[in-house]
């Protein structure tokens, strides 16, 4: 086993274990912290694929910003296992049905892939480096890129509008 393979399997085990712990933790704060560990191991995978920019942006955006907001909300709501309402029986049955059918679809989709995957440990590509990524984004994909940035801008404006106090409508 080369050092690359060892790192790959270690990160994979870490990611899967973290993802399982997100689901099985009783405490929602623990779930969020496990999710952060999943993001870390995914970033490690990006680095193995020589996509350092993606790795670090994944960490800044997901682990550094979005998960902090999750933590904010969960910590301030002060969720406890006692105060959590019990789910009804029908909801559980529906959940297991939909989960089982998702598993069937996944099995059907993945059963033919065993021969098709060749270079898992391929690291020669350097499309993930910041220079190449920028060039591709601003030449080939410039229109979708700009449209998505307008989408973000509108979401931002909407958030500011929602957060603003309505001064006259409540009084009148």
């Amino acid at each position: 086993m080369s050092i690359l393979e060892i790192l790959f399997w270690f990160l994979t085990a870490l990611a899967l274990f973290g993802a399982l712990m997100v689901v099985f933790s009783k405490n929602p704060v623990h779930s969020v912290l496990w999710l952060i560990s999943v993001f870390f191991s995914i970033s490690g995978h990006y680095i193995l694929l020589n996509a350092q920019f993606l790795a670090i942006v994944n960490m800044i955006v997901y682990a550094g910003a979005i998960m902090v907001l999750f933590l904010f909300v969960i910590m301030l709501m002060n969720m406890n296992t006692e105060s959590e309402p019990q789910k009804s029986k029908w909801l559980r049955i529906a959940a297991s049905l939909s989960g089982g059918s998702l598993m069937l679809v996944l099995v059907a989709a993945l059963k033919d892939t065993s021969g098709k995957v060749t270079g898992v440990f391929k690291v020669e590509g350097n499309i993930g480096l910041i220079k190449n990524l920028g060039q591709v984004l601003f030449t080939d994909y410039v229109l979708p890129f700009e449209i998505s940035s307008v989408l973000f801008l509108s979401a931002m404006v909407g958030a500011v509008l929602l957060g603003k106090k309505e001064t006259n409508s409540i009084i009148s």
Partner: protein
Amino acid sequence: MTILQIDFFYFLEKLLLIGGVITFSLVIAMYTTYAERKVAAVLQDRLGPNRAGPFGLLQPLADGLKLFFKEEIIPLTSNKLLFVIGPALAMITAMLTSAVIPWGSTVNMFGRNVSLQIADVNIGILYVFGVVSLGVYGIMIGGWSSNNKFSLIAAVRGASQIISYELAMGLSLIALLMMTGSLSLKTIVEQQMSGGWGGFLGWNVLYQPLGFLIFLICVFAECNRTPFDLPEAENELNFGYHQEYSSMKLGFYLFAEYINMFISSAIVSTLFFGGYDIPFVNETTLAHTLGGNVVALLGVAALLAKIVFFLFFFMWVRWTIPRFRYDQLMDLGWKKLIPLALANMLITAIVILWLNK
């Protein structure tokens, strides 16, 4: 010697370098606490610590021992595991940034060229931002796991301050990155060294004075230093997110702040003040007369001198300027620094386009 396709000498070299940098940061941070008291004493016309050892030089050791021997209290209703992880996270994130800072050029030892930088990654600055954004977790976890309303409110206060100032910090650096065209800290330092007057005219602070000012203000906010030390405003609000902590866990939180100060000073010196560049001296001609190793060590000393100046600046500001109110802090961050940084970015872009035409 290669087993498992690893160059073990390289591994050992990096391991020694990491150990050296961490020990060094810890010792510097230890003596920063001493220096802070001495500077405070000078500014307030007092003597400062002068009992433990000559000139009170053993005072940091005495303080450390005191913290270790104090009773350690973990509140009964706290989340025990996270209560312990909190201060550890604060320390780890404080130390992690030192990995990408170029402490000096290369030293020739035993026939090997040893670079005085732990990792020269091509996304150096983004790595710094990644670690800074993770620094919030130490505060949030510590504040929440104490199971105390005041700790939680202080943690939210601190976390929102850090997130707000990260934005202005990133925007102020984009203008700098437009000039350098590289994210690697080593490349940025080498570009500055190639300027006129032995490198002095290449320093980025001469071309990005506004960017430097915004970055410096944001660094103060990120390190929770006065005038932005609202997360731990002990005499107005309450002690802050580490209110329930005692003994060395409290010490870790306070110590992490000093390490953050040291590392931020190093980053400011690297980005804007030429890093390990010795001003008014051409390093390559000096290397012919004195030898490469001596010049490399002189470069480390130059970087250290810059860092010490900024550490002094941190203390100077702390004992001169009063604390901001919280709404003033948010106002400054969102309504003043971010538009200013955007304007700086626009002006830089226009000037670069105009010069390249």
